């Protein structure tokens, strides 16, 4: 009994000591009573040097927190109790957050640098007047392949994936809208199709891909592609970029018949405490020099035309990540289809996952 008592006391003491230490370590960031700006962003999606630079320039203290999915971020902000001044959802989530009255209008006068953003990246259906969002990075959905297993240039179109050659070789992204969208485009339909008949056709076509599919995963795909575990992966350009950094055998293709064009965007949630700082930060990040530095760090394509010009030629003209005009014209932005249709997409995809073997 006495032993247990001593054990409990010592555990409590250790915990107390650790808590005190943690408190002590956090202190330097909390002191000084500077006003702070709380950013809620995807992990590793902003050059930390830029945060330092912004802190120096503006005098604000930046708190940086991260999330790993749009849905997780949405749930957290919707539940309340958070004070994020700035967050970066994807385009369909912008619509959803706006509909749920979670977003504040942007004060465009405070963000003069918006003029640097390319016209083709503004006024998209998810925020027609850009009243709520400023594009941060953009990208595509495409095919990554490993030239150890697939001849260079052998894959150009979505339909190439259905070839018998690639039996049990393909890793498919675990996202209903993207997988169904790929099948829809290969049939010549829109990625935002709402016709149940066309959706069923797309599912049937996807079922035909079943034997070629090795696994349906998202985050882990990066590791598998880098380790030469599979020949082909269907994934987003950002993921592809990270894979290609670690494995030079990988190549990325955006089929020119069409694909998804996605945006991650700055938005200011209604719960923000320091909107002034948020606008200042957006404006700071849109500064061509900073945007270019950030684009080089993150590796995604920037919508900032002035920043694009500052990037080295091999990046700027890399057709894998800055596709040519014809391909760009065929890219489609996801629309928020409402809960019912979203559910239909997901149910069909789940059925595909169950039966396709």
């Amino acid at each position: 009994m006495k032993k247990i008592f001593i054990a409990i006391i010592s555990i409590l003491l250790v915990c107390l000591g650790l808590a005190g230490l943690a408190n002590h370590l956090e202190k330097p960031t909390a002191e000084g009573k500077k006003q702070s700006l709380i950013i809620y962003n995807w992990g590793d999606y902003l050059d930390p040097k830029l945060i330092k630079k912004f802190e120096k320039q503006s005098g604000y203290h930046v708190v940086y927190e991260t999330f790993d999915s749009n849905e997780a971020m949405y749930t957290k902000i919707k539940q309340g109790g958070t004070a994020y001044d700035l967050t970066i959802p994807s385009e369909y989530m912008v619509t959803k957050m706006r509909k749920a009255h979670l977003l504040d209008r942007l004060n465009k006068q405070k963000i003069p640098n918006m003029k640097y953003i390319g016209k083709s990246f503004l006024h998209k259906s998810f925020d027609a007047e850009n009243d709520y969002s400023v594009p941060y990075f953009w990208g595509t959905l495409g095919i990554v392949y490993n030239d150890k297993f697939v001849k260079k240039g052998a894959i150009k179109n979505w339909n190439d994936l259905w070839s018998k050659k690639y039996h049990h070789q393909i890793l498919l992204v675990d996202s209903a809208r993207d997988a169904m969208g790929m099948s829809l485009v290969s049939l010549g339909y829109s990625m935002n199709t709402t016709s149940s008949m066309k959706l069923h056709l797309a599912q049937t076509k996807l079922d035909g891909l079943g034997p070629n599919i090795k696994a349906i995963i998202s985050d882990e795909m990066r590791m598998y592609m880098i380790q030469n575990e599979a020949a082909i992966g269907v994934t987003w350009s950002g993921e592809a970029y990270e894979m290609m950094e670690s494995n030079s055998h990988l190549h990325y293709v955006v089929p020119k018949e069409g694909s998804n064009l996605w945006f991650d965007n700055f938005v200011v949630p209604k719960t923000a405490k320091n909107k002034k700082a948020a606008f200042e930060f957006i404006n700071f990040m849109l500064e061509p020099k900073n945007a270019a530095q950030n684009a080089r760090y993150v590796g995604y394509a920037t919508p900032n035309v002035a920043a694009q010009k500052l990037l080295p030629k091999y990046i700027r003209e890399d057709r894998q990540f800055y596709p040519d005009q014809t391909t760009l014209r065929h890219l489609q932005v996801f629309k928020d289809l409402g809960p019912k249709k979203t559910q239909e997409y997901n149910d069909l995809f789940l059925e595909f996952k169950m039966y396709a073997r």
Partner: protein
Amino acid sequence: MRTRKALFLIPYLLWIFLFVILPILLILWYSFTDSNRSFTLNNYVVFFRNGTFLRMMINSFWYAMLITLLTLVISYPAAYFLTKMKNQQLWLLLIILPTWINLLLKAYAFIGILGNNGLVNQFLHLFGIGPVNILFTDFAFIFVATYIEIPFMILPIFNAIKEINPAVIQASEDLGASRWQTFRYVLWPLSRPGVESGVQAIFIPSLSLFMLTRLIGGNRVITLGTAIEEYFMTTMNWNMGATIGVILIVLMVIVMLITSRKARRKKVDL
């Protein structure tokens, strides 16, 4: 005195209410409402009318059963021989040791072992075989799940066998029972409570495994756990997700009832 006793009860009652009863009530409430928060039975109708969900339920049951059976077949002899070993504590420690490692780490370790360039394929390569596709197959999923569950089966069986008075076994042998008869009529019934708690500890969580189905099964194995994750995280249809949750709870209660009823009947006093 009595009131003081009641006072001690308060934290426990609060705990049970807040973390056991309230969540279950919430799930039930979600499952009986639609997105406009009005009462509906529609979620259940959808579940039982939709072939996909039923198929998923059968899938979950099938995989959970395979995992449990395989674990039992491996663990029972292991537990039995453990009771005959010299350094029992050491062996037991070695069996428990893997449970100290995080499940996610173990899953990633297996990815490394089973992959195309993994240990197994490198070994097979020595004999000119391969590379064989092991990762993302039913076999890989069941194998890894079994590996992870084995300690939870060995421990209760070990304890149950250890409690058996050795004199009973000796008596059975002295009275001319064959080894098989001793096992069938003495050892097995007496160790049964251990087997049952082991089965419960494995079958019930196995019903809703979903991390392994994704990491090791590559989403080629779909269980009700996968569906719950999708409904809560992707489509945010919490009502349907909660319905699947309620059905899982009901399934688990049924499994508990079946296994524990037998346990009561077979209880033998010595």
